[in-house]
């Protein structure tokens, strides 16, 4: 699968950072919008209050000194420029005084307020001073047909609020930009590390199992991912290696009997006329194929046991009768093959497992002992309670034993020590015992046996130690 390195935009880290930046921007925008709405509303209400105060002042003048008083008051208030806007209108609609050129043509709203734009010559030398300014006003009749129009210029406040609005927008944009930028940075870092892992996994898929994901030792989740990934590769490599070994062993162990069988058949075909030798060759070939089938059956058995199919039918039982029965079956065999046989069985223990598997395991242990112990040697079958209460089943012989360094290896499939290569057998006996021990959760121990006397080897002691408890 050829795929280009994903660009950072597609990475999860980037998307997450972007999402959080977006949410942050949205929430800050909402907060600022609320601030804006609140402050703009407050400014408007204040303007209205100022205008109403001014009306009250005008009406007071009118009561005290009539229309002339009002006129004077307005002149006084507007001289030298003011944020207040006034118009004094007589009953005929003529303008008597004020600092506006005329009534604005805006219509009052339901509450009587008029929002409008008026022109004002630049007062200061501020170049950017606008000509048109925003204002709010109200027309009130003060008596005797006279009306007063009072307004407030709120252009300055408006501009302030405008600046606030712009600041809010800029801030929001900045938050988003920062979010994107941090998303890029975080996702780049993140994806660089992930890419390293991806590269390794692609190399491994390509068949090279020796690569490992880099670790930075920080113990963070990516580091842990790398560690687990590496552990997985370790296991994979081990399994591959074991499979290769099994493959090699199968090739080795099956090839020789197959070749033998083939040669015999070929011989028999060439050997025209001699019926007797042909018969013998056929019988030999039959034996060879039985041996091969035995190997296959053993492989199959081990796989089934290792798969744990039987675990569902496990029961608690006393192993003593199982061991005694097996001892009884093998005792004459041992004696016929010139071995002394001893059996010690301690009753009333409990193991959790499968009787038939246990029998098979004992049979394999005894077969193994008979095969490797020279004539005149001794074989001992024993079931005892360990000091910690665990049940221990053991077979001890006086054969050549197994050197300590080989002890783990012999329980692997097909492993036969070089010196026993020429002996018949599948090399699966002890692996079957190991598989049976494993499926029972038991420990398989190999030790030196009771030998070392009369020119015998150190002997071998194979023990299965069952777990305690129910």
């Amino acid at each position: 699968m050829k795929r280009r390195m994903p660009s950072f935009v597609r990475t999860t880290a980037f998307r997450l950072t972007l999402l959080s930046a977006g949410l942050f921007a949205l929430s800050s925008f909402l907060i600022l919008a609320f601030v804006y709405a609140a402050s703009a509303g407050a400014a408007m209400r204040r303007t209205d209050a100022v205008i109403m105060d001014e009306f009250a002042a005008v009406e007071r003048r009118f009561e005290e000194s009539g229309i002339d008083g009002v006129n004077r008051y307005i002149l006084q208030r507007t001289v030298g420029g003011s944020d207040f806007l006034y118009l004094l209108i007589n009953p005929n609609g003529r303008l008597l005084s004020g600092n506006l050129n005329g009534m604005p043509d805006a219509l009052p709203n339901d509450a009587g307020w008029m929002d409008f734009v008026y022109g004002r010559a630049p007062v200061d030398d501020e170049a950017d001073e606008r000509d048109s300014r925003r204002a709010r006003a109200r027309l009130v009749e003060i008596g005797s047909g006279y009306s007063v129009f009072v307004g407030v210029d709120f252009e300055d406040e408006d501009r302030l609020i405008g600046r606030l609005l712009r600041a809010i927008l800029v801030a929001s944009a900045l938050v988003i930009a920062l979010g994107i930028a941090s998303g890029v940075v975080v996702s780049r870092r993140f994806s660089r590390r992930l890419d390293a892992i991806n590269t390794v996994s692609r190399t491994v898929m390509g068949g090279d199992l020796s690569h490992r994901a880099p670790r930075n030792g920080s113990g963070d989740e990516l580091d842990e991912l790398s560690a687990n990934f590496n552990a997985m590769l370790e296991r994979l490599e081990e399994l591959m290696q074991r499979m290769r070994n099994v493959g090699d062993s199968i090739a080795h162990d099956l090839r020789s009997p197959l070749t033998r069988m083939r040669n015999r058949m070929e011989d028999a075909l060439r050997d025209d006329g001699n019926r007797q030798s042909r018969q013998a060759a056929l019988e030999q070939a039959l034996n060879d194929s039985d041996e091969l089938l035995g190997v296959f059956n053993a492989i199959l058995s081990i796989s089934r046991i290792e798969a744990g199919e039987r675990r569902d039918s496990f029961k608690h039982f006393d192993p003593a009768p199982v061991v005694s029965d097996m001892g009884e079956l093998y005792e004459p065999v041992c004696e016929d093959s010139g071995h002394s046989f001893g059996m010690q069985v301690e009753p009333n223990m409990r193991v959790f497992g499968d009787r038939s598997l246990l029998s098979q395991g004992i049979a394999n242990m005894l077969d193994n002992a008979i095969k490797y112990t020279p004539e005149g040697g001794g074989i001992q079958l024993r079931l005892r309670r360990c000091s910690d209460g665990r049940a221990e089943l053991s077979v001890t012989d006086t054969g050549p034993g197994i050197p300590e360094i080989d002890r783990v290896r012999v329980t692997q499939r097909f492993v036969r020590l070089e010196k026993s290569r020429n002996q018949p057998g599948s090399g699966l006996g002890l692996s079957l015992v190991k598989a049976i021990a494993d499926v029972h959760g038991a420990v398989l121990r190999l030790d030196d046996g009771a030998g070392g006397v009369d020119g015998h080897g150190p002997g071998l002691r194979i023990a299965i130690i069952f777990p305690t408890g129910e």
Partner: protein
Amino acid sequence: MRILIIEDDREAANYIRKGLKESGHVVDHAADGEEGLAMGRSAEYDILVVDRMLPKLDGLSVIESLRDEGVSSPVLILSALGEVDHRVEGLKAGGDDYLVKPYAFAELLARIEALARRRDPEAVRTKLVVGDMEMDLLARTVVRGGEAILLQPREFRLLEFLMKHSGQVVTRTMLLEKVWDYHFDPQTNVIDVHISRLRSKIDKPFDEALLHTVRGAGYRLQA
């Protein structure tokens, strides 16, 4: 005997058929489960040999259906599945014996003949007789030519099985399964050793041997 083989593998079926015909049996063959069920229903067979895995209808279902319909002929199941659970399933479905593939023909023949013998009306026998040897099943004693033979309990059971199947070939696997109840093959020939012990007790002191070795197959107890 009239034997029905239900087996989809033509070559295996021909191999069995040829061998059984040579032993003097009449053999019919069905190549799938449905055909086998139809044939098993329509005719009276002395023995049915049924492969467990069959096209259209699996072997166990065939046996269950036949048993439901009252067919009581002994059934030998052939299977590549040899675990204890599989055997139990097979026997539960109505099979009488279970043989794991691959097998030697001698094994198959011995089992078929043992199954056929079982059909004979076998009243509760308390005495088995082969030649001048008598076994009393109640008193648990064996006498040959007027002389009592002392046997261990397991030797007694071994001889009992051989006497019940006297005149027939009994294989080592059959003995291991029926006398010891073990369903695996030990690498050492344990059965041969036990047979030779038994032989030294029942045959050695006498002129005529009753327990014969059948080359390539097993043993036969015969006067």
